[in-house]
C-alpha cells in the first residue's frame, strides 16, 4: 500500500518551494493543504495529463502570528484534515500552517518533515525554530544555519 502524504504550505513563496519537492512523494497518495483555492487547477491538470490519481486538496484560512482568531481557525480545520487523511508522513515548507501540521502529525504518529524557507538565509524562521524538536527531519536550506543539533542542511529547492 502506498504511503499517504500530507504536503503543506501557505500560499506564495512557501507553496512554490513545496511544489519543487514534488518528486519526493512520487507514487504516494498525496493530499495538499494550502491557504488558497487558486493552485488546485494546476495540480488537477497535471495529474490528468500524466494519468495519475487527482491529489487531495484542502484549503485552510490564511493567518499570521498576530491574527490569533485566524490561527485558531487554521488549527481547527487542520485538525479535521489530519484526522481525515491520517497521513503516514507530513512535509511542509511553512509557515504557521506547517507548524500546526507537524504538531498534529506527531499526535497521529506521522513522520514529520520541516524544510525551512530559503528566504531565511541568516536565521531560521520563528515557526522553524519552534518546530525543530518535533520534526523527524528538520532542514534549513542554508549551510551556515545548520548545526550539529539541527537543523540539518541537505541542499536547497534551487
Amino acid at each position, binding site marked *: 500500500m502506498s504511503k499517504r502524504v500530507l504536503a503543506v504550505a501557505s*500560499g506564495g513563496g512557501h507553496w512554490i518551494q513545496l511544489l*519543487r519537492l514534488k518528486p519526493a512523494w512520487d507514487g504516494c497518495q498525496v493530499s495538499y493543504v494550502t491557504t488558497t483555492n487558486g493552485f488546485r487547477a494546476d495540480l488537477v491538470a497535471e495529474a490528468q495529463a500524466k494519468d495519475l490519481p487527482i491529489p487531495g486538496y484542502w484549503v485552510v484560512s*490564511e493567518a499570521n502570528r498576530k491574527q490569533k482568531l485566524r490561527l485558531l481557525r487554521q488549527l481547527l480545520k487542520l485538525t479535521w484534515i489530519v484526522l481525515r487523511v491520517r497521513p503516514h508522513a507530513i512535509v511542509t515548507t511553512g509557515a504557521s500552517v506547517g507548524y500546526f501540521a507537524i504538531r498534529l502529525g506527531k499526535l497521529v504518529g506521522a513522520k514529520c*518533515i520541516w524544510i525551512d524557507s530559503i528566504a531565511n538565509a541568516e536565521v531560521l524562521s520563528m515557526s522553524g525554530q519552534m518546530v525543530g524538536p518535533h520534526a523527524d527531519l528538520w532542514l534549513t536550506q542554508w549551510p551556515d544555519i545548520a548545526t550539529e543539533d539541527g537543523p540539518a542542511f*541537505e541542499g536547497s*529547492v*534551487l
Partner: protein
Amino acid sequence: MIFLTIGTHEPFDRLVRAVDAWAGETGAEVFAQITDRAEFVPQHMTYVNHVDPAEYDARCAAAPFLIAHAGMGSILAALKLAKPIVVLPRRGHLNETRNDHQFATAQKFGTRPGILVAETEADLPQRLSQAQALVAAGTGAAGPISPTAEPRLIAAIRAVILS
C-alpha cells in the same frame, strides 16, 4: 507590460510609490499588484489589489521583467522564466516585515545575473534602467532553473517519507 508584485497580504507603499514615480518620468508601462491595504494610489500605472495564481503566472510570462519585494515567490518566478527582476527588500525597522529576512535574501540572491537589488528606493530608478538595458540587449538573466529541487534534498525527504 512590466509586472510589479508585492506579495499577497502586506502593503508595500514605499516600493509602489517609487515605481509609480519612475513610470511617470519614463513613460514605462507597468501593471501593479498592490494589496487591499495599500494607501498610496498609483497615478501612472494600471493596478489591482490581488491577482489569482493563474493571472500571476500569465502576467509574469508576458512581462519583459519583474519588479517585486524580495520575496522568494517573486524571485523564484523570475528564475523559472529566466527574466530579470528588480527587488526592493522590505525592512524590519520600517515594520514592512517582522525581521530583515528580505534584506538577507536580497544580498544572497543579488549576486545572480538578472537579479537587481535596490537597497533603498533611491537606487530603484538606476536598477530599473539596468533591467530595461538587459531586456533590450536580450542577455537578461541566467538560464531557467531546473523545475525541481536539488536531487539530494528530494532524496533526503523521500527516505523519511518511505521509512
